[in-house]
């Protein structure tokens, strides 16, 4: 047996995190099926009830794979690199391919265990009757390939980055890009005629990278009819693309597993001030805020911790923020312009829902990325000890750290304001709704930030805090939407309404009267809940910071 497989697999199995995860998954899957298990004695021969249970189970299992699987391969190679053991492995008679095979097999074996945890629930679902065994096999095939795709992707990211927390961040961002962003071109091109048949075909193929259409097809919520019979089924398309992309990711990573992986010379630290006039001008035009310009020192009116947070984030620096804000502003304007000029048949409500979802997606991706490492990052790097030695108070420290995330999220939220302004210009009667939506989004940001910061502060390792925070934040924001997907069947109106109250996104969508959300009354209770939970999380963060800063 490849020694790396043994070490990797047993290493993961021995970690309490993995054990807890497996136990939780088994309980969650079993509970999900149990909750929807028919209570009456009558036999449902149509299979409708079992299909309802199967959908809950299928989406839940997919969510489990998406949340839990990428964290392990993402840290796999970078941890090995940082601890120096990758150099030892590369120095051994093992070649890059066998090291890769060993590592990926260990992670895949664990992922198979995650899928195995669902088998009791799956068997119970099957026992209800009405669903053919091929459906189960197809679901497991899609999820198995999804696991393979995300594992290979995580390892590819891991081979490039320098720290485990950035590996987790980038991997999750890539996973969400594959999951959601791949759907957008098809939504944009289908039926609009823009770009002709080729664009529509390309859009469909890009859509095939996402597992969502394939899983929806298996769970009987396919959109085959709308696509036409000539098109390739979603499952087949996904299987093909997942295999090809996994192979490509694997080959790419293996090609990096040699001595060149350490070939990274130290930065010369060349700054713009020392460049010639033309280069300086060019950089000023490209960057607007040039990251390589020598700084004048932190002014007295700014919290130094906040400035430090901005400066030591690669993505958080001003030039990146400006780019992100520009993209958001342009996207929101284009969406609203399309609705106004009738390029699409979408109504203002759909456009509003898209804007809300775009912002929520940004908040959900950005908040854990920036917030989870606020405290754990300091503890991980040894900076916490240094900060404790300075006269800065814990309060000022936490405020500085939180403000660095607040400004980022605020800028991103404000970037979509032009879209809303255009919306109000098109339909002035929506003014109050738009205001309420903006308040909802503000609460969403506060909610995501407080949960990320509080949960992240509980861990010492940045990689662990980032992974756990992503799982929790995404869970909190995605779970109600998953339950909403099962509205009427299997979940009743009250269940869905209660679930949507868990975060302010449902409230924002119901206020803007997005299709499917019109009937829910979520305000102002949703705001109170968001405020309460955020308050609790900030208290938790405060207590944790106080605990870590005091001398014992």
């Amino acid at each position: 047996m490849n020694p790396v497989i043994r070490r990797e697999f047993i290493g993961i199995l021995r970690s309490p995190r993995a054990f807890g995860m497996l136990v939780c998954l088994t309980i969650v899957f079993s509970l999900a099926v149990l909750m929807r298990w028919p209570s009456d004695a009558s036999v449902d021969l149509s299979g409708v009830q079992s299909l309802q249970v199967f959908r809950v189970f299928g989406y839940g299992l997919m969510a489990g794979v998406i949340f839990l699987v990428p964290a392990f391969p993402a840290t796999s190679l970078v941890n090995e690199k940082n601890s120096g053991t990758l150099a030892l492995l590369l120095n051994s008679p093992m070649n890059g391919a066998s090291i890769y095979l060993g590592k990926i097999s260990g992670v895949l074996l664990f992922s198979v265990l995650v899928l195995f945890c669902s088998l009791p629930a799956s068997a119970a679902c099957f026992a209800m009757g009405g669903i053919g065994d091929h459906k189960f096999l197809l679901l497991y095939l899609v999820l198995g390939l999804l696991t393979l795709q995300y594992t290979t992707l995580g390892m590819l990211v891991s081979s490039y980055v320098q720290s485990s927390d950035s590996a987790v961040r980038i991997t999750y961002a890539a996973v969400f890009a594959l999951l959601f962003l791949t759907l957008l071109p098809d939504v944009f091109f289908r039926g609009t005629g823009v770009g002709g048949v080729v664009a529509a075909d390309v859009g469909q193929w890009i859509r095939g990278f996402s597992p969502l259409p394939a899983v929806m097809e298996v769970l009987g919520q396919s959109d085959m009819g709308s696509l036409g019979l000539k098109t390739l089924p979603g499952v087949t398309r996904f299987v093909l693309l997942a295999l090809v992309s996994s192979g490509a990711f694997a080959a790419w990573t293996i090609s990096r597993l040699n001595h060149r992986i350490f070939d990274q010379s130290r930065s010369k630290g060349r700054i713009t001030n020392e460049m010639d006039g033309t280069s300086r001008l060019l950089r000023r035009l490209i960057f607007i805020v040039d990251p390589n310009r020598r700084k004048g020192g932190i002014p007295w009116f700014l919290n130094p911790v906040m400035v430090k947070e901005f400066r030591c984030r690669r993505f958080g620096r001003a030039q990146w923020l400006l780019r992100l804000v520009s993209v958001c502003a342009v996207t929101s304007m284009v969406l609203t312009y399309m609705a106004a000029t009738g390029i699409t048949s979408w109504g203002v409500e759909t456009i509003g829902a898209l804007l809300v979802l775009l912002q929520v997606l940004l908040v959900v991706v950005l908040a854990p990325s920036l917030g989870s490492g606020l405290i754990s990052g300091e503890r991980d790097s040894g900076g916490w000890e240094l900060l404790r030695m300075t006269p800065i108070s814990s309060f000022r420290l936490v405020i500085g750290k939180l403000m660095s995330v607040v400004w980022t999220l605020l800028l991103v939220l404000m970037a979509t304001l032009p879209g809303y302004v255009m919306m109000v210009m098109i339909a002035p009667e929506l003014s109050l709704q738009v205001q309420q939506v903006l308040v909802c989004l503000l609460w969403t940001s506060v909610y995501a930030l407080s949960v990320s910061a509080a949960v992240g502060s509980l861990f010492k390792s940045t990689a662990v805090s980032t992974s756990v925070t992503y799982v929790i934040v995404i869970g909190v924001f995605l779970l109600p939407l998953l339950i909403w997907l099962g509205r009427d069947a299997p979940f009743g109106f009250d269940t869905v309404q209660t679930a949507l109250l868990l975060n302010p996104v449902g409230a924002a969508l119901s206020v803007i009267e997005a299709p499917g959300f019109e009937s829910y009354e979520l305000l102002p209770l949703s705001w109170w809940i968001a405020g309460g939970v955020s308050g609790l999380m900030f208290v938790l963060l405060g207590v944790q910071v106080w605990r870590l800063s005091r001398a014992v």
Partner: protein
Amino acid sequence: MSGTDAVIQIEGLTKRYGEFTALDGLSMQVGQGQILGFIGPNGAGKTTTIKILVGLLKATSGRASIAGANCLTESRKIKKLVGYMPDDFGKYNNMRVSEYLDFFGAVYGISRQPRRKRVDEVLEIAGATYMKDLYVDALSRGMQQRVALARTMMHDPEVLILDEPANGLDPQARIDMRTLLLRLSEMGKTLIVTSHILPELARVCDVVAMITQGKLRAFGTVDSIMREIQQRRTFEIQLLDRASVEVGATDVRDWLNGKVDEEKGGAGTADAAPAEQMVRFNTSLSDEAIAPLLAHLVNRGLPISQFREVPTDLEDAFLHVANEPGVGQDAVIDGEKAS
């Protein structure tokens, strides 16, 4: 040194974690401008002592003060008085050295203009001016040590506590670090330095404190501690031929047996080392008492080429203190008193 001269005063400092005693009644004083070498094996209690001194840990009992400020109750004052350089660098990614130092200066409340000047000053003192625009995460270990020292000096503290400053440094960088420590001492700074590289430490320290299992075992100047510890000195007699080695060893043994040290019993022991053509002996006799031995051996016709005392250093003294069962659990070798 009187209590009033001392910048750092520690009395009966004790730290317990449940049943485990990490620090057991530690007492010592360090004067202004002195460099204290704080040595002990891993887990001896050095870092615990340092963390109490800088206000990061609370002592179970005892007192500690720096420049009159109580380390246990006046942590804000202590933070301004002390610059602490932990073993861990504490790097921030994507920050240049100047930004890194600027941040720490701002956190210490230094206003913008003086801070800029101070960044240049500390970089100059640490010999790291050329690193100003480099990224902190791209620095080598030796470069990081210099930047860490610059960071420690940013707020111009009276006392510098440096945990393993020579760790990971190449020989040239170690020499530079040694010069730097002496320069800081000349500037009137009081320094506490821990290190496992004892010969390095012996060259710069005014006083040394040796600690094992949370207890202070020896305290004083390097010379005084060694004088106190060296109850028996080792001598080597180099002979010109191998055949004379056994004869020489017997002669030395007989001569030593003829002398009785009234305080310490036997006068010494001698061993033959034929492979090295050498007779090695240790004795508690003074230089005056031992001088006639050479004449005695020459008169006996032994072909002697060298007669020398084996110099002991701080490493030997440390090993003696750490391993010698004779050093009682509560005994402290007070080199200062001895001297």
